[in-house]
């Protein structure tokens, strides 16, 4: 909630994320080539498995076939040929990992993580026959996404967040204009639709805790509750419109909300979304649902909680959608379970969609459906909390 935001220059943010991803993943390299005479210098990683030694002569690899268990594996490559070489592990034509520029007489270490399967290894000159590397299954380390795998999803997520903030600003303008014009019914109708944009990107918005408090705090957060001067934002206006049934005195809150949302939009524009914030965001959104939306405590004056409920789900599902190819590869069962629970929750909520758009009020939710939502929501919270670990993100 109150982390220092990662503010990096505007338009280049996505590029910066890509460049910075190395920070979040181990690269597997442990330094450059070392003289063969001093192999221990390539040590350093005491925890790494004992290296598999491969010598490369002028004609071939020795041995030409290797078998290793899946997961983290370390190779010690000894260049016994007359020329500098690069040693590659290949899957078809794709280079899975490589160690470049090993001088004659030198040794290099390569540590990498391999999934089960059959790979080729290069052995000096391209005309030399390739060796075979068999990686056996058993307990494969979860396939962690590579650095580049996450760049696309993060860039797309940034586009999604930016779009939601734009819509938030636009809809908040319309909502507050109605408030200030004293159009009570119109303001009431515009309240929930404006909020959903905020609720969809709540984990990102909450990176700015000062604005989150100003825009979205509830009366509970303040000692004097509704009368507290610190109580501002959507719920303060909601209180006026729905509990007091009046737009009177709301103009200052309307102006402040517009200003705070504009500030949020400005800050998000220059925000580089770190991978852990995007991936963890799915879990954060479901925690929101589990802790307050499911009990109808969020929109206690308007009872529009189901709008927020769906918006939190939408935001989480967006993240899950963007990551699905990676999740599916790393843990298909987890991916299936998440999808199934989202479907269950969406289906129950769909019963409460109103004809005019949006949702019925929270009090229409039957105790049976309220209970039926609890299980899948809690299971989603547990499963989504495993997403970062599954994808190997710190």
């Amino acid at each position, binding site marked *: *909630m*109150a982390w220092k935001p990662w503010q990096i220059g505007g338009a280049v943010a996505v590029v910066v994320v890509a460049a910075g991803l190395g920070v979040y993943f181990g690269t597997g390299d442990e330094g450059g080539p070392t003289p063969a005479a001093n192999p221990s210098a390539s040590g350093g990683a005491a925890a790494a498995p004992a290296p598999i030694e491969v010598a490369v002569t002028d004609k071939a690899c020795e041995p030409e076939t290797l078998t290793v268990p899946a997961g983290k594996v370390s190779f010690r490559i000894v260049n016994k040929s007359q020329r500098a070489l690069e040693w590659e592990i290949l899957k078809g034509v794709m280079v899975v990992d490589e160690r470049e520029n090993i001088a004659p007489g030198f040794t290099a270490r390569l540590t990498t993580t391999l999934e089960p399967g059959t790979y080729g290894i290069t052995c000096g000159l391209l005309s030399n026959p390739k060796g075979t590397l068999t990686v056996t299954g058993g307990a494969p380390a979860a396939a962690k996404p590579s650095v580049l795998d996450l760049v696309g999803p993060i860039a797309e997520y940034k586009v999604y967040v930016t779009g939601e903030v734009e819509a938030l600003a636009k809809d908040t303008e319309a909502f507050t204009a109605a408030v200030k014009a004293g159009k009570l019914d119109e303001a009431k109708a515009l309240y929930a639709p404006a909020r959903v944009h905020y609720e969809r990107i709540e984990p990102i918005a909450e990176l700015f805790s000062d604005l989150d408090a100003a825009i979205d705090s509830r009366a509970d*957060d*303040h000692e004097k509750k509704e009368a507290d001067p610190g109580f501002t934002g959507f719920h303060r206006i909601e209180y006026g419109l729905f509990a007091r049934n009046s737009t009177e005195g709301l103009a200052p809150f309307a102006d402040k909300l517009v200003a705070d949302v504009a500030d949020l939009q400005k800050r998000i524009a220059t925000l580089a979304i770190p991978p852990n914030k995007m991936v963890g965001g799915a879990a954060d959104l479901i*925690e929101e649902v589990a*802790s307050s939306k499911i*009990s109808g405590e969020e929109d206690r004056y308007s009872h529009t909680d189901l709008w927020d409920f769906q918006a939190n789900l939408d935001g989480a599902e967006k993240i899950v959608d963007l990551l699905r190819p990676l999740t599916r590869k790393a843990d298909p069962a987890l991916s299936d379970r998440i999808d199934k629970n989202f479907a269950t929750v969406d289906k129950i909520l769909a019963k409460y969609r109103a004809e005019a758009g949006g949702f019925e009020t929270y009090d229409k939710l039957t105790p049976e459906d309220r209970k039926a939502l609890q299980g899948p929501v809690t299971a989603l*919270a547990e499963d989504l*909390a495993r997403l970062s670990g599954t994808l190997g993100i710190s």
Partner: protein
Amino acid sequence: MAETPPRDPAKPEAERLRSPGRRNLLLGLGAVGGGAVVGALAGNAAAAEKPGPVADGAKARQPVYGRHQSGVATPRPAAAMIASFDVLATTKDELRDLFRGLTERVAFLMQGGTPPSLDPKFPPADSGVLGPTVTPHDLTVTVAVGASLFDGRFGLAGLKPRHLETMHAFPNDALVADECHGDLLLQICSDSPEANVHALRDVVKHFPSQLMLRWKQDGFAPPQALATPAGTGRNLLGFKDGTVNPDPLDPAAMERVVWVQDGQGEPAWAVGGSYQAVRLIRHFVEAWDRTALQEQENIFGRDKATGAPLGMKREHDEPDFAKDPKGERVPLTAHMRLANPRTKGEPAHRLFRRPFNYSRGITKAAQMDMGLIFICFQADLAAGFITVQNRLNGEPLEEYVKPFGGGYFFVLPGVPDKSRYLGQPLLEA
């Protein structure tokens, strides 16, 4: 620290109780229970008394009289109850009666004894929760007062301790008015929740027209052993809480950190007392249990299993933050680092923590309502709790915790002997 002499099964109990061990002296004097004993405790015996549970189960007791009240520099027992009251007395005389009476009840409850038996046509004198004879169970009842006691009602406005104020909300707080503040706070601790319930019911029954309960919260904690170095208890987030704490059994440390001294600019009556900050802090344990271990550890800055600062081996290893200026080992936002940045000139301790965990019902969203009764004592509230909490504002831990109640109080100085009462120097100032 002296310990209970080894038991000699051949020695009769009465003789053992007469042996000169300081705690046994107290035990011996109190063995028959009742008010007469209390007088005998006045003076030297009590003054020499140091806090600490004796290994005698239900009969163990803590000193009633002395320079300071028990329950502060007393090793933390297993059970606590924090009860805040509004004072209904309307005049200074009534307030004096209340404090006199309260002092008597506290002495009886802490010493133990047999309540009078009454004609069964009447309600009994005692709740009977501890049986026909009240056993002390290491009970301490620590009496503190809130800023509101110094309003116009009792003519005490000019005597308020200088830092005592109504607790204001920090940015992450969501204070519930019904669980905050109060004129009078009783911190009731013992080795048994029943003894705490018994004590509270005794007080409530004795002062029907003078006290009204405002809020209360039960707590529990891994008890701290007497002679062995106190193992640090864990909070309900599973982390050790209170690693960097002055030793409550080191009187010099307690004088420096906890007790108000002469020359601090405090009213004379307050010397020997202490500021007490109480914070009821809910922990969002479901969400916490769904948080990656490395994130949990980065939030606290400590290894969850050992309690060692990240990158170190043992709980009490001292991190050198000067060598970690970017927070690569212990993040700059880690709880332990914000609370105590270990910069030059920063005192080793600003406060003494004596917290308890709590667990009560569930929320409307079917989530567990549990967390911490944070309690700390200090000689200067502004330089102590308020300074540290201001440093913590905005910490990543806030995502998982929500302070909702508590308040600031001032622990009255101790009662020197049976002829005096709690708060006497204040009320007769």
